[in-house]
C-alpha cells in the first residue's frame, strides 16, 4: 500500500470464508467508516453480519462512541476523539468481528412488524394527481393516474402479481437515515424483488404513511414530504413527533435496525381509522413479533433451487418489462 497524502484506509481485515475484506476508512476527526468488501454490492447477508457485529460494538458501551450508522455495506462510527482514539475504536471493531468467526455465529435479533396496507388509497392518489398537475403532466409512471401500472410494467408482471409480491415477502431494514424515522426496507425473498426507477423529477408532496418503492427499496413515509419513490398505497403511522402514543414513549421512531416489515392488505377506511387511534386516542396496538435471523439458514434458503428458480424467472420478466416500460 502506498503512503500517499490522500490515503484514507487506516487498517484492514482480510477476507474469510464467511466475511468480506474489511476496510477502515478515515472520515474526518470524529467519524470512521467500516466498509465491507471493495465491490459495490447490496446483499442482505452482508447487512445481517454487519448489524450483528454492530450490536456487539454497541454492547461494549465504549466511552466516546456517539453512535453507529449502518448502511447496506458500510457502517459509519461517530465518536468524540478526545475521549476515544481512532486506534482504540478500530481495535474494538476488530474484536467484535473476530468474536463472530463463521456464518453459523451470525444470529441477528430481528422484530417482525405487521403493517396494514391499503393499495391505491385516495391520499396517495392525491399525491400522484398533484404531481401530474404541478410537476410533470406527461409523466409515464402516472399515465393512468397512479404508479402501480407502471411498476407492474417495469417488472413484466400484472398489477395483481405486483401486489402479491409486495405482500409476499418480509422487508428487511438495513438501517435508517435520510429522512427522520425512515428505514430502507429490502425484500428478503428474491422472488418478490420488485425493482423500479425513481420519479424524475421528484414529487413536492407525499402524505404521511405513503408506501413507495424506488430501486429495490421500500420506504414508508414518516411525515408529509417530497419524494421520489413510486407509490403503491398507504400504511399506518411509523413515526410520531409528539411521542404521545405508548409505542413512541422512548422516541418518535417505530423502526429499529434489522426489523422486518410484513404488509397485509386492508381497506382504506381501516387505515384511516388507525391514524385516529395512533395520533389522537393513542390506543392502537401495533402488531410486532420478536424474532431473529439466522444468517446460515437464510443463505441456505436463498440458495435453494426453488428460490433461485423463482428469482431467475422474475429477473427474466423484469428484463422484458424494462424494454417495454418508458424511461423516466
Amino acid at each position: 500500500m502506498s503512503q500517499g497524502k490522500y490515503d484514507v484506509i487506516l487498517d484492514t481485515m482480510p477476507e474469510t470464508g464467511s466475511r468480506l475484506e474489511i476496510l477502515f476508512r478515515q472520515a474526518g476527526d470524529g467519524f470512521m467508516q467500516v466498509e465491507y468488501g471493495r465491490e459495490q454490492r447490496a446483499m442482505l447477508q452482508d447487512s445481517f453480519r454487519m448489524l450483528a457485529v454492530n450490536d456487539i460494538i454497541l454492547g461494549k458501551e465504549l466511552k466516546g462512541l456517539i453512535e453507529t450508522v449502518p448502511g447496506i455495506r458500510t457502517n459509519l462510527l461517530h465518536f468524540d476523539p478526545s475521549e476515544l482514539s481512532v486506534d482504540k475504536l478500530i481495535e474494538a471493531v476488530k474484536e467484535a468481528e473476530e468474536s463472530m468467526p463463521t456464518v453459523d455465529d451470525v444470529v441477528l435479533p430481528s422484530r417482525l412488524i405487521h403493517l396494514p396496507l391499503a393499495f391505491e388509497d385516495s391520499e396517495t392518489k392525491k399525491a400522484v394527481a398533484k404531481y401530474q398537475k404541478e410537476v410533470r403532466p406527461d409523466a409515464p409512471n402516472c399515465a393512468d393516474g397512479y404508479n402501480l401500472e407502471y411498476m407492474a410494467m417495469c417488472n413484466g408482471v400484472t398489477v395483481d402479481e405486483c401486489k402479491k409480491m409486495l405482500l409476499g415477502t418480509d422487508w428487511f431494514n438495513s438501517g435508517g437515515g435520510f429522512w427522520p424515522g425512515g428505514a430502507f426496507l429490502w425484500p428478503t425473498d428474491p422472488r418478490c424483488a420488485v425493482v423500479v426507477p425513481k420519479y424524475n423529477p421528484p414529487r413536492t408532496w407525499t402524505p404521511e404513511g405513503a408506501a413507495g418503492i424506488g430501486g429495490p427499496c421500500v420506504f414508508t413515509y414518516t411525515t408529509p414530504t417530497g419524494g421520489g419513490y413510486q407509490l403503491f398505497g398507504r400504511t399506518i403511522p411509523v413515526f410520531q413527533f409528539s411521542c404521545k402514543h405508548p409505542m413512541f414513549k422512548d422516541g418518535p421512531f417505530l423502526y429499529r435496525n434489522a426489523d422486518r416489515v410484513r404488509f397485509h392488505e386492508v381497506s382504506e377506511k381501516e387505515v384511516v381509522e388507525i391514524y385516529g387511534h395512533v395520533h389522537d386516542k393513542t390506543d392502537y396496538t401495533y402488531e410486532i413479533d420478536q424474532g431473529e435471523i439466522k444468517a446460515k439458514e437464510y443463505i441456505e434458503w436463498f440458495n435453494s433451487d426453488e428460490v433461485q428458480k423463482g428469482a431467475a424467472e422474475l429477473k427474466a420478466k423484469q428484463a422484458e418489462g424494462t424494454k417495454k416500460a418508458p424511461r423516466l
Partner: protein
Amino acid sequence: MLKIINGGIETLVEDWPGRLGYLGKGMSASGSFDCVGLGLANVLVGNPSGQAGLEITGGFFEAEFTDDHVIALTGTDMQPTINGQPVEMWTSLKVSAGDKIKLLHIAPTGFRCYLAVAGGVDVPAYLGSKSTCIFGAYGGFDGRPLKPGDEVKFGAPSAELSSLEGRKLKPEAIPQYTNQWVLRAIPGPNTCPDYATQEGMDLLFSRVSKIQHTSNRSAYRLEELPASFFARTDGGVGGSHPSNIIDHAYAIRGALNICGNTPILLVADGPTLGGYMCALNVINADLWKVGQGAPGRDFMQFQLSSQEEAIQARQEQKQWLSEDSLA
C-alpha cells in the same frame, strides 16, 4: 421575554453541539452554524458555551425585551441598535423592559449574527437539544424561524445581572472574518486511487471556489469539478455517474459530498445518508467558518490537515470558548 417584531431573513433557536446520536434515524445534529459566534456570546453573558441562543442569518431582525436582561451580540456586524442607539458587539450589555433591538444587513464579512441572553433561550429540548432543524421543521421554536408576534422566553441567569454586564473579550479572542475561508480538511472516506484521481484530489485541495448562492443550512454548494476528478467511469451498481455509490451514511457535520460534478459541503441540517461519494471532511474545529461564509459572495479553500492537528484544534477551541477568553 423577547417579543418579535420582525424575524428578519431567518432567525432560529440553535444550541451546540446540537442533536447528537440520531443520524441513523435520519436526523442530523443541526446546531449553531457558527459555534464560535454562539459560544463567545454565551461566555460573555455567563452561560455555558453551548447554551441555546438566536442565530440571525442575513439580518433585518427586530424585537422588544419585556424584562431586564443581559445580552451579547457576536458574528457579522449587522449594525445593531437598541432604541435607535448603536451598541457594541462582542461585549455584554444590559437591556431593560421595553428596549427595542434592531439589526440591519450583513457586514462586508460574515453572514450570521448571534444573540445570547443570560440564562439562555428557554424552549423545550427535543431529543436532547434545543436546536431547530429547519428542513425537518422540528426542534427550537416550534421547528421554524421566528416571526412577528412570537414570544421567546429565557432561563435564569447564572449570576446577578449587574455582575454579568460590561464583560468584554480579549482582543485576540474575537475571530477574524474574511471573504476567502480556509477550511482545514481530512481526506476520506472516498479518495484516490479508487474513487478520485490524484490530480483530482490535488485540485480539490488547491483551488478556491465560490460558495454558490443556492447554499443553505443543509448544504453549501461549491463550483463544479471536472470529469478528470473521478477515477471511475461510472458508479457500478450504485448508479451511472462516477460520483454514485451504494447508499452510505454521511459523516456530517462536515462531509464533502460529490453529487454529480458538484461538491457539496454537508452542514448543520444536511442529509444523513445517500448514494454519493464523500471526498473529505472539514475538521470539527473549522466548521464554524462555514457558517460565516456568505453564499454568492465568499470563497472557500480546503487545506490538507491530519487527525492529530484536528484533535489539537478541538482542544484549542474548547479553551477559546471559555471564560479564559474574557478580558
